[in-house]
């Protein structure tokens, strides 16, 4: 059994030297709540070449697995910005930012505090 797993693992993760089909990266994306999470992950996954995207509301970290031959972090960041979320690399335009639900306006300190309070109560 163990051997099978090892063989399968070896087969599945064999990377081409030039460009990685399963490149892993994590970028910081601003956001405040579960609705943001859904929006960010959808935008990322709908980018051609992205295989998996998981965003953490507490750390703001977006864990990505993507095919380097088809996309890169800039493209993904652009896509995320286009739905209103800032990344380190690319900021959403006012217009994109304003398209979001009012409760997700993460640039607004009041909104941030509201969500912090919620967290405090959840704990």
């Amino acid at each position: 059994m163990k051997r099978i797993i090892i063989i399968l693992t070896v087969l599945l993760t064999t990377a081409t030297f030039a460009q990685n089909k399963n490149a892993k990266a994590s970028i910081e994306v601003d956001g405040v709540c579960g609705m943001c999470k859904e929006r960010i992950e959808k935008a990322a996954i709908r980018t051609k070449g992205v295989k998996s995207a998981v965003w953490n509301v507490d750390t703001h970290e977006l864990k990505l697995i993507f095919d380097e031959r088809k996309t890169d972090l800039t493209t993904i960041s652009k896509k995320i910005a286009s739905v209103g979320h800032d990344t380190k690399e690319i900021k959403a335009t006012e217009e994109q930012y304003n398209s979001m639900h009012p409760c997700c306006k993460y640039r607004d300190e009041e909104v941030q505090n509201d969500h912090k309070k919620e967290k405090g109560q959840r704990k």
Partner: protein
Amino acid sequence: MRKFIILIVLCPIYLFSQDQLKGIVLEASSAKEMPLPGANVYWSGSSVGAITADDGTFSLPYKFSYNELVISYVGFKTDTITVNENKYIKHVLEASDELDAVVVKSRNQATSKSYLKATNTLFVSSDELLKAACCNLSESFETNPSIDVNFADAVSGTRQIKMLGLNSPYILIATENIPAIRGASQAYGLSFIPGTWVESIQITKGTGSVVNGFESIAGQINAELVKPSTDNRLFVNLYGASSERLELNTHLNTKVSDKWSTGLYLHGNTHQQKHDVNDDGFLDMPLYNQINVMNRWQYTNPEKGVVSFINFRYLNDEKQAGQVNFDPERDRATTNFWGSEINTERFEVTTKLGYVNPEIPYQSIGFQTAFSHHKQDSYFGLNLYDIQHNSFYSNLVYNTIISDSRHKVKTGLSFTYDHYDELVNTDTYERTENSVGGFFEYAYDNLDKLTMTAGVRVDQHNRLGFFVTPRLHVRYTPWGKSAWRFSVGRGKRSANIFAENQNMFASSRQINILNSGGKIYGLDPEIAWNYGISYLQGFNLFERKADITFDFYRTDFKNQVVVDWENPYEINFYNLEGDSYANSFQFEFNYNVFEHFDIRTAYKYYDIKTDYNSGKLEKPLIPKHRLFANASYETNQKENGAQWKFDATYNWLDSQRFPSTDLSPVEFQLDDYSPTVGTLNLQVTKVFSPKFEVYLGGENVTNVRQGNPIVSAENPFGSNFDSNFVYGPIFGSMYYAGLRYKLK
């Protein structure tokens, strides 16, 4: 708002004749007292009040009848002072430590429906299982409208479950996704899984996934068991019922090392009191003893992404039923008294190995094996029935994605082996079944309105041949809080006619198999297609959550092993010639009436017909209409976790068709249809703390009973004896009490 009211009240009224009470409100700030403008001052229980001015002063009408003055301001503690005479008031408000925080609470429902899954699946949490102190899995569906529970016969005390109007052999019942209740354990297997071992249950209507095999036709039920790493360190449950049934459950869980945990689960139940409420000379419920032991080992290694379980289980179950005066030592195999004993021994070893690639979270491999040895020795009056069933099951599942995580794939291989040895009176039946199969299931989720699961499996089976099992489930959400679901799929199985219909032995019927040259008892396997559509809509009613569900399922048998009871002297098994279908419609309405008070109501309609040799007939002993209602209320949890919980469940069953008794002598003939029957169950739980709770309940509190469940009970060795015409409770009301003690 209050300010507003007060303003309205105050503005127009200024009567000089009235006495005025004057005063000042101050706040105690760091060093000195400061005037507090804008504070509310009003007479308790009246609408007479004022607001303090910029200098903190106020003035409001005074009457002798007013004697309590309330002074309040947001951010300060509200004070009530007693005023006995009209004199100047000076009052200091203290700042409250913090603003009253608004706490947003959400409560997980005990039974929840998913708005997102492609399959029509109900999640039943352990909270739901506590609503009726179920002692084993067969009793844990009492509060669930999708599953019907009834007695199989008037002798063995066995509860049968039905889904979509089809009985349990058509449902794939699994524990932790390993098919568990099949073959020899089909009749009593549900009572071999203690309720306290169950962590949660998932009930899927319709064919379900291809991953777990090809046998499910009406639905799938999966019970997740408690796990050593998450279950209580110590759990004790004691249960006693007025029928003198006693049960004891003990769980012990411990961490062996940082990666290994183990749990030991002990269950014992006993019932040694003879009851004959209806005076027919027969026990209303059997005498029994059961010992059930499970030992689980769990290995968790998050760095490597490995999780593994190894379970060992041993069961010994002994039942005695029949006439009150029956003594097995003395009367077995004689015609002194009619009696029956069913002794079962079962041993199981199951393993699970799961590997999730820590680098790539969407890739995982699971491998499951299950070995079981099941031995039942039994006799029913002069009928002998022994069965031995050795079974091996293994399933390898590989999960991955295609292009991105919207497209998930499950694929794998399964291998099963079953060996049956049966003795029916003087005939022996022996057969081996084995199958090798591969499956592929594609799940698409557009992250919005649509999810879909399309699966197919191909199996090579030594008796069922080579066949393909396709299944499709779609969920579409056109608007908010809704889910339309469609499902279609095929199932195929070999009918274990004796094991599944053991109740026939408790009668004088002659067993006939109308051999058609098939490979299982001379019969061909059963094949059915199941189609379903369901609509779930959540909405708010008077600002409280509610949801309604409509679903309609149709099962169409292409081939079936017909169990024909229509001649009172015979039971006939033969392959279907013509049509056999089961239509079921269900409407469900759930409503959270107010905080902590929920109701669940359902109406069900069944239309189930089969072409028997004697013509097209309704399936016997199935009510055409059924009503169900469950209400549950719990008080607010106190700081220490103490609370009360109340539950009530009502079931009403329409009349049910009795199998034909036209050929019997007049005195043994029954009506065509049974009376209707309604039962009510109640339970109260008092939680003292998270560690300790006690419960008290009543089943069938209105004491509804079927008068004469056994035909020709006075002459059990005569040719008209039959205990299968059961439509309702036999014993009447039963009260029980119990306690649960747990250490986290």
